């Protein structure tokens, strides 16, 4: 193409004076690097603070969890201790509630196992049964030949005897200021 044609095709150059005023553009080519602005302190603090908070919270929670296990083990050992003391006391009592010991103690007090009982019927004050008092004789003798065996009582008797032997060493002096002990019951008048 000829230069003339080409130039004819080109748009007509507009003189700067004729050019209508264009609106000022915001965009402009970058000529120099942008100035470094300081980042906002608050944002940084919040971010770091949040991270630190999360970390602390996690550490705190795990401390609390493990702390409980120490408390738990402390209570467990307390309970074990108390259980041991309970067992020790129960073992001391073993055998004491047995009928053999009860009967022996009762017979030492002079009680007897008597015969048939009498009953008082309250509705008409009738006495059912023999209407006889208990005789002094016991139908059984808990301290005699027929004693029902209890190894626990024998063990206790043994240890009691041992303790007695060791306690016998202490002097048994009677305080002279005390009145003499009563052996035959308080004196009382006989009434008719």
């Amino acid at each position, binding site marked *: 193409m000829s230069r003339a044609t080409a130039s004819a095709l080109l748009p007509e150059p507009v003189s700067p004076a004729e050019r209508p005023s264009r609106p000022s553009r915001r965009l402009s080519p970058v000529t120099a690097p942008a100035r470094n602005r300081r980042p906002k302190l608050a944002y940084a603090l919040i971010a770091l603070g949040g991270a630190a908070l999360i970390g602390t919270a996690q550490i705190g929670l795990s401390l609390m*969890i*493990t702390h409980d*296990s120490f408390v738990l083990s402390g209570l467990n050992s307390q309970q074990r201790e108390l259980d*041991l*003391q309970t*067992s*020790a006391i129960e*073992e*001391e009592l*073993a*055998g004491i*509630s*047995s*009928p*053999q010991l009860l*009967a022996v103690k009762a017979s030492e007090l002079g009680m007897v*196992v008597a*015969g*048939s*009982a*009498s*009953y008082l019927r309250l509705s008409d004050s009738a006495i*059912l*049964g*023999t209407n*006889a008092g208990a005789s002094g004789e016991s*139908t*059984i*003798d*808990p301290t*005699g*030949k*027929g*004693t*029902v*065996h*209890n*190894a*626990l*009582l*024998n063990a206790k008797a043994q240890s009691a005897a*041992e303790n007695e032997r060791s306690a016998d060493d202490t002097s048994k002096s009677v305080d002279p200021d005390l009145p003499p002990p009563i052996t035959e019951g308080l004196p009382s008048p006989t009434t008719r």
Partner: protein
Amino acid sequence: MTTRATRATRGPRRRTVVALAVILAVLCAFVVRLIDIQVVSASEHVKDSLQVGQLGSTHALTGNRGSIVDANGTVLASSMTVYDAQLSPNLIMLLENDKDGPPETPWDEAADKIAAITGQDADELRAGVAANLKDNPDSKYYQLKNGLSTDKYLELRDLGLVYLSMKPRETRVYPNGAVAGNIVGYLDSEREAQAGIEQMQESCLAPTDGERTYLRGKGGEIIPGSERVVDALDGGSVQLTINSDLNWYMQQMLAEQAQKQGARAATAVVVEVKTGKIRAAAEWPSMDPNDLNASNPDDWGTRVFGLSYEPGSTFKAITAAAVLDTGAVNMNTTVSAAGHEKFPNGAVINDAFVHGAYNYTLAGALIDSSNVAVSKFGTMIDSQTRYEYLQRFGVGEKTIDFPREANGVLHPAEGWDSQSLYTTTFGQHFTVTAPQIAGAYQAIANGGEKIDLSLVESCTLDDGTVVKPEAPEHKQIISESTADQVSRILENVAVQGGLADQVSIPGYRVAIKTGTAQKPKDDGSGYKAGKYYTSMVGFAPAEDPEYVVIVTLDEPTRIASSTATAPAFQQAMTQVLKTYRVPPSTAPMDELLPKFN
């Protein structure tokens, strides 16, 4: 216009792709390996860690064996922990000879303290440890004392000695000693139940083990949060129908009476009529499970349930019930019986006392306990019917399936020969145990309704649930009127019989039957001479029976007949009526039945 990627731009892009591909490949490798470890072979690795790495640890937690209590909750058997103490002589010497840090308590002083607590001799202890060290200078074990109570364990522990270690061990303690000892049974040294309720109720009493698993750190500390515990379950608690105070009285009374009568052994069983529950099962000599060696091994079992014998005259009441129930005989029927008779089939039957021919009624036959008269009454029904009645009354059948309980022997009716045709009417040629007799009389006392005997009330499991055994069977084996008639006859035996004074209980109407059974010779050729197994069974109050009591004596020598058991029976029945506050009889006895007609 197209933009072509020039070589300059293609280069960096390909490098990026290649780099990313390499990274992806490495990542894939990691992911595959991760899946392999965490998912595919996870269980193997966990197992490895537990075994080889000893990361995890598992302990079995043992539960306690259940306890046995009586009808009122009194504990008859329970588990107790004792401690076995041992010393480590090696450690003692190490500490003694440590010049930098001598022990707080030197060994001599410590030995004194230890010996004071355990009740040993301090010098012997020191000598024993020294001898142990001489044998083996590295000895780490010296047995101090086994079976220490918790009390002593706490005292020894408070000494704070490093070389003293105490291992807990579970044992069984029986707080009431020999009371119901033969019923409760015992455990052997392996803690296996060998007899009695311990064996019979093993499934209820046995504990269930638990487990405790945890992960351990390097130093052995438990990693918190990794502990898993499956609690051990203690064994259940068995409640018996036995009244332990009544049982104690029976044992005490039997011991005194048997020794007074010069007997080898004695038993007593108390059964509640309306429920069939065994309220007392006593025997002498008895066994204290706390101390087996204090008694003869023959006494470790159960004479009450395990010994079966020919009952003798006590079964005349069952024959009477049988003949009355079938209607073959009524209260006015009489037979003529002399003290010694030979029957048509060749059998010879004797009475216990010599007499001429009397016209006995059924009541008279029982009051005088005439073998001849009862033979004649009994054979008015055929033997098969009598056999069936014996079966109905429980002969030949176990009562509660107690360990080592005897069935008793009952031969079939076809096998009864000419002599046993008659002797089976008065309690020979078959054997029963004392509870079986009590059960038979319970039927008579309960208006003809037999209730199976029971010994176990319930089993209370660890979590509180109460498991009751199957309800006992109730069966009407004879009609109510038959039972009433037989009861009346038995009351007449008590009042008109020779032992009336000895068995009477003031205020109560009692019904009894005595039995003097011959004991067969060991070789089976006839009976022992002069040696009897005497028994007395009865129930009271006769108008509305509440309790059946049977007392037996094995070979009483002072009086060799059932008279020997009379005082024991009277005391036993009195105590039973007192224990259960049974109101005295208010209705007077019906008129006396005629013995002869």
